[in-house]
């Protein structure tokens, strides 16, 4: 692929929280179909970076260029509120670590999955419901639960529902913040399996933040290692994990650091 095909092109991104934390000098590109993992200790700036990409935080400096479905390259921070919200419910998706942050808990599973379709103008109940049922099946939630509220679901099911709710609109870029965090090990494995299948089947473009190098190895094509708000090392996943260049990454990989 050529450099110009990038879906996302981030340059010199910076945000200073005023207490020495934040992110600095982050630049990278992301191509369609790629899964980029961001790893590092807690406090290294990886979730901040994801929130900058998702528009939940505004940077102090730098640009985030995104290639729209029509081919135009736009700086996400220059978009009007209206266009940004529209992108946020169609082309972009954000999977929160805590599914309760990404679901409407008072709304049924079907309503949760259908929301992005309705927000984008879908007005045929039968088709919205069919799409919801299809997506529940894809994330391995029984069709019989379609009219139940997420509060009656287990943590793993809530997370799968959140993923369905995000993917139903066919987003071109999916941002995930520790999607397997907070789940039991066996539940994690099942979710990871599911995610890997979806990424492969749908050719999703993903930026995934994780402290779990196992998750990173299974899902990510490329990795960026963050420390103190900077990207200190990046490369193909196997290369970074099996042959780390930076001492910090070596410590991370050898699990000396509690990531």
């Amino acid at each position, binding site marked *: 692929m050529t450099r110009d095909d990038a879906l996302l092109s981030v340059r010199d991104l910076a945000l200073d929280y005023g207490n020495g934390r934040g992110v600095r000098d982050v630049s990278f590109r992301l191509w369609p179909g790629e899964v980029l993992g961001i790893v590092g200790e807690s406090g290294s700036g990886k979730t901040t970076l994801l929130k900058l990409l998702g528009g939940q935080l505004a940077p102090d400096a730098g640009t985030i260029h995104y290639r729209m479905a029509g081919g135009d390259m736009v700086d996400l921070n220059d978009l009007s*509120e*209206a266009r940004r*919200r*529209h992108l946020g*419910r169609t082309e972009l998706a954000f999977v929160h670590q805590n599914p309760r942050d990404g679901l*409407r808990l008072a*709304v*049924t599973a*079907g*309503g949760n999955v*259908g*929301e*992005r379709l*309705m*927000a*984008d103008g879908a*007005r*045929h*109940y*039968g088709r*919205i*419901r069919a799409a919801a049922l299809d997506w529940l099946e894809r994330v391995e939630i029984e069709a019989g639960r*379609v*009219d139940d509220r997420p509060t009656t679901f287990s943590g793993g099911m809530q997370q799968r529902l959140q993923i369905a709710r995000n993917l139903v609109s066919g987003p071109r870029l999916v941002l995930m913040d520790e999607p397997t965090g907070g789940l039991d090990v066996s539940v994690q494995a099942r979710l990871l399996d599911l995610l890997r299948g979806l990424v492969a089947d749908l050719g999703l473009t993903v930026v995934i933040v994780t402290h779990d190098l196992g998750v990173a190895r299974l899902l990510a094509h490329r990795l960026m290692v963050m420390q103190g708000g900077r990207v200190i090392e990046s490369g193909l996943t196997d290369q970074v994990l099996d042959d780390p260049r930076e001492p910090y990454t070596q410590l991370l990989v050898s699990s000396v650091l509690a990531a």
Partner: protein
Amino acid sequence: MSGTEGYNFAYLDEQTKRMIRRAILKAVAVPGYQVPFASREMPLPYGWGTGGIQVTASVLGADDTLKVIDQGADDTTNAVSIRRFFARTAGVATTTRTAEATVIQTRHRVPETPLTGDQILVYQVPIPEPLRWLEPREAETRALHALGDYGVMQVELYEDIAIHGKIKRSYDYPVEVADRYMMSPSPIPKFDNPKLSDCPALQLFGAGREKRIYAIPPHTPVRSLDFEDHPFDIDHPGTPCALCGDTESFLDEIVTDDKGGRMFVCSDTDHCAERQAEAGHDA
């Protein structure tokens, strides 16, 4: 209130009326959009029609004939009270006949008699924001309107069908005005919703406590929200009015005894009386 010496025509001072008329003009220019206005403290309680009263006071002229209804009836106590307020402060003619009125202030009903281009219908509105129950914050609901971001309401309707098999709203059923703004029609029964669309009369909505005015200009399309495969429909108890025999008007249920006895009569008392008078002449 005793005596109104020292008060201006229709109570409000002319400067306030001009302010309200400017808000009304803006509301007419942007159908369905809620225009903030500096609602005054009226001598009637908030929630009892202060918004409608201010709008009526601002559009009323000395030659107008005013009709006031509450629940479709001219002689419910609050309708009587508001009619007397204007009879006293503006000295205008009042009527109970829909066809004779030039300004009709209403709470919770649209008259059964079709309105004309020479009439203004003023609705009293308790909660003007159709998204209020889904999003309590004014700052956020204004953003949702500005962006036309109405998915959350559609989800609400989806939930009704999924759980109850049909849309569960029976009154204050949200509408979309002129293909743009989502609007609360005020707590009229959804039975009345179709009358809002393409209506020849100017329809003005006043919310005093919430300080908002909005409007539907004459002949504006108004669509009740629904799904293509679950279209909006109206319920009717299926019985005729026990007094005038009308099978198509909205009916009040009157409990006649404590053994389940009940009868249905027109909620629009003028409509019902007219029909009874006609039947009387015929007989």
